[in-house]
């Protein structure tokens, strides 16, 4: 469903007819006529609307498939397995910190 110049022309024609129908309806109304007495005007309105819809569907581009797993596609096990509420802090990364005190482990061991 590629948008083509053909569909753009149809859309322009459709909108012209729709605007024409609206303008003439407003004119008739201001001159005091009842709109239900003019079936051609109603017909023109509906047909031009359908023409516009047809053209817009083609111009709007391809529809995308909705998949249940779309959002999971780019996730990896590494982020899924990481659970913030179960973080533990006594890992080896601790000793890389500038504030690390190597004697703290001995103290902790002695206490136990």
């Amino acid at each position, binding site marked *: 469903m590629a948008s083509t110049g053909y569909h753009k022309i149809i859309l322009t024609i459709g909108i012209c007819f729709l605007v024409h129908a609206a303008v003439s309806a407003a004119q008739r109304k201001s001159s005091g006529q009842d709109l239900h007495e003019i079936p051609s005007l109603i017909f023109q309105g509906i047909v031009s609307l359908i023409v516009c819809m047809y053209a817009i569907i083609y111009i709007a581009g391809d529809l995308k498939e909705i998949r249940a*797993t779309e959002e999971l596609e780019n996730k990896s096990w590494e982020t899924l*397995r990481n659970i913030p509420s179960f973080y533990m*802090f006594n890992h080896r990364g601790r000793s*890389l910190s500038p504030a690390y005190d190597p004697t703290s482990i001995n103290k902790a061991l002695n206490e136990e």
Partner: protein
Amino acid sequence: MELTKQSSWNKARDILKDWRDNNQRRSVEVIEIWENSLASKIHKLGDDRFVVLEQVSVAALDCNRLDVAASCIHSLIKEFPNSLRVRTLLVMKLEAQQRYEEALEHLETIIKIDETNTAARKRKICILKAKNKIPEAIKELTEYLKKFMTDQETWQELCDLYLSEGDYAKAVFCMEELFLHHPHNHLLHQRYADILYTQGGLENIELAISHYLMAINLNEKNIRALYGLALSCHQVLTSAKCSAAKKKEISKQMMWVSKHLARQYEEQQGNTETLTELMSALQVS
């Protein structure tokens, strides 16, 4: 990191939000971003600043940067003096300092005030884990799961603990529980199959094959599942118990997997040289 130094505060905020939402640990980077661009601009973040402060303080505890953690927690206490969530952060700080007894006392009072506070109960389990008392932690976790059966994270944690104890049958049960929550998550199927494959035995490996296939069906880019499938097929083919008809079917699957893997490598790298190398390393031909 050049990037973190130059980025403005709103870029830094977006990065932190992304990591928070995607459960990325990256504690060292969080601290770097905090010190380089966010610490002085924290008032600009609006209501987001409290979540950021929490994230930074956990990251700081993770890197043993107690100074950073203390200042973050302090500003949170000023804002919410009675919050149990902030109190849990204080407990985490005690844990990072290895003052477990005090931490436990605090947790008991939190649970007394609010019986449904799951974060405090989880911290209690973490203290057991930190003391390397895995069997006790498992016992505590099962008690917890009797009360809060729908907590997926905890099922996952229990699964990991069982794996570290080598109790594969029970780990498999935990994964099955997770399936009930997310039947369409390809990573869970892949993980489940990984555990079954590790457990071994013809029946388990056949079940693993079907779950690897399910994972690939849900996401065909899951390379780990593709390799897992290749390995399990190889296992079945070399096993003596398998019937000839079954072997024929499995070898068909094997062909399909290697073709599929080759295609994925083509798409990503444009050649399959590394793939042939890796396959020979796995002794799967």
